[in-house]
Structures are given as C-alpha cells and as structure tokens.
C-alpha cells in the first residue's frame, strides 16, 4: 500500500508538471479558457483517482489525454442536442474580416485549427502541442500509428490550405464547418 502511494504521488507530480500543456491542448479543442481549465481539472481529477488502472507508467500522458478527450466528448454531448460527435464541428467564433484587420496570426491559426475535422485536429494538437510521439498519439486516440500518420498529414495539408486562404483574404464558406442542428 505504501509503495502504491509513492507511485501515485510520483504520477500525480508528473501530471502536474505537464498541466500547462494539457491546458493548451484543452484550449485548442474548446477555444475557451474557462472550459479548458474545467476540462483539465476534470481529467486530472479522474486520472488521480484511477492511477491503479494505469499499467504502464510511461503512457501516463497519453492515458490522461484519453481521459481528457472522453471528458470533452461528454461535455459536447451534454451541451448539444444533436449528435454525432464526428459530425460536429466548431463554429468559428469570429468572422474572417476581423482577422484581416487585426492581423493576429496566432488567433487566425487557432481559428483554422478549430475549423479542421475533429479527427485531424486531435492528432495535430497532440503531436504539436503535447509533443507526443506517434505511438503516444496512437495510444491516446486508440488508433493505429498508420492512421495517426495519415491524419496528421491531412491535418497539416488542410491547415496550410486554410492559412493560405486567410492570407489571400478568402475564407471558404463550407457547409461542413457549420453546426448541424437536427
């Protein structure tokens, strides 16, 4: 029992050390600071009480990410009436015109990432924000490494296209990016 407590303490310390990254990841998904905080808090709480179910300590971050993703999906289900999670896409919270005038490239990039298909967004944010290896992303998303690679590839290609379009002052009005209300 004492060993277990030591292990749990070590794991919780590791998680806390990565808290900032988890927050960035959550922010990337939700685009809301308070929601991101709640998501991280909830995920870490759940992780803390479930350490015994983590068999491989090296997969701590991926495991916690998975928890956070599930929490996020739960939040989406609670919030929305519709729902296939896969169908759902975040609506851009500001119009293209604002980006043109503000020239806030970071905000623009975040917006473009938000416009990506959720599957692609998950992969690109895990690789680039969490700095996951492909294996870790595969564990967190419960998909094969090959799928991680192909989705990342598509995500970056799409992101590049979107950024290019923004830079050329063209924003595609694509029905797939508008929330569907059933």
């Amino acid at each position, binding site marked *: 029992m004492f060993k277990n407590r030591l292990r749990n303490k070590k794991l919780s310390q590791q998680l806390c050390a990565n808290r900032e990254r988890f927050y960035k990841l959550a922010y990337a998904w939700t685009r809301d600071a308070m929601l991101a905080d709640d998501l991280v808090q909830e995920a870490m709480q759940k992780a803390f*009480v*479930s350490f*015994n*179910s983590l068999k491989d300590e090296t997969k701590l971050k991926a495991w916690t990410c998975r928890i956070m993703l599930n929490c996020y999906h739960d939040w989406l289900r609670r919030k929305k009436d519709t729902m296939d999670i896969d169908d759902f896409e975040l609506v851009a919270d500001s119009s293209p015109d604002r980006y043109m005038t503000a020239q806030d490239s970071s905000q623009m990039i975040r917006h473009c990432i938000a416009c990506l298909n959720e599957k692609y967004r998950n992969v690109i944010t895990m690789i680039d924000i969490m700095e996951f290896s492909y294996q870790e992303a595969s564990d967190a998303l419960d998909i094969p490494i090959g799928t991680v690679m192909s989705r990342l590839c598509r995500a970056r290609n799409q992101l590049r296209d979107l950024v290019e379009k923004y830079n050329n002052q063209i924003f595609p009005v694509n029905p797939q990016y508008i929330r569907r209300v059933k």
Partner: protein
Amino acid sequence: MVKLHKYLLLVFLCLVNIPAALAANEKVVYHIHQTQADTLKRAINNIENLKKGMPGKPMDIRLLMQGNSIQLLNPSLQDKNLMARLLKLQDSGIHIEVSEKNYRHNRLQIESSLKPLLVENFFGRLIELQNQGYRYLTP
C-alpha cells in the same frame, strides 16, 4: 473510486458483525434436577464462570430447578455464603424458575429473598426456552 468502494465494502462487512455480536444475548438455560449436596455449588460455580468467561457480554441465564433439587434453595439447608452468591447472581439478572408442582406439592421452603418464577409445565418450559435459542446446560 474503485479503491474507495473496496474499503467501504470491507468496513461494511466488519460492521455487519459488530452489531450482531453486540446485540446478541448469550442465552443459557441451566437445568438442575439432582439433589446432591454440592449440586447447587457446582451450578453457581458454573454460572459465575460463564459470566466471567464472557465479560461485558449481555447474558440471559435462567436457572430451572425441578423436583427435590428445589430444596437446595432452602436457607436452613444451605451454606450462607452460597446463598449470598446465588442472591448476587439473581441481582445481576439471573432468573430462577422452579417447577410449581414440585414447589407446592413438597411445600418446599425457599430463601425469602429469592423470587423464583413458578413454572406450571416444567419440561414444556425447557422445550420452549431451547426453541428460543437457549443453550442447555446441567451441572
């Protein structure tokens, strides 16, 4: 959460036994039917040892006496110390029950401080008590 459930379950299982143990009276019916001189002494020794052996445990002990063994409760025929011990046991909650038929038929003299219950159907009473879970003991 699973770990908490395990601990709570353990506590629950332990707690189930505690009230069961605490609440349970130790019930004993001590039957005297012999008339030897040392019968009452043996009985008192047994009962005192029983109480000593289970300190703090609530006990319901009934001393049932039939036939000529009731004579053992005659103060003129008994050692004073022994009678004092029996009275002390009665004060501590021991119930003394005697066969009414034997008591009246033989006009037996009983120590006035003792207030035994007179039992009409003695064997019926023994059966009734055993059916109620009383353990049966004799000297």
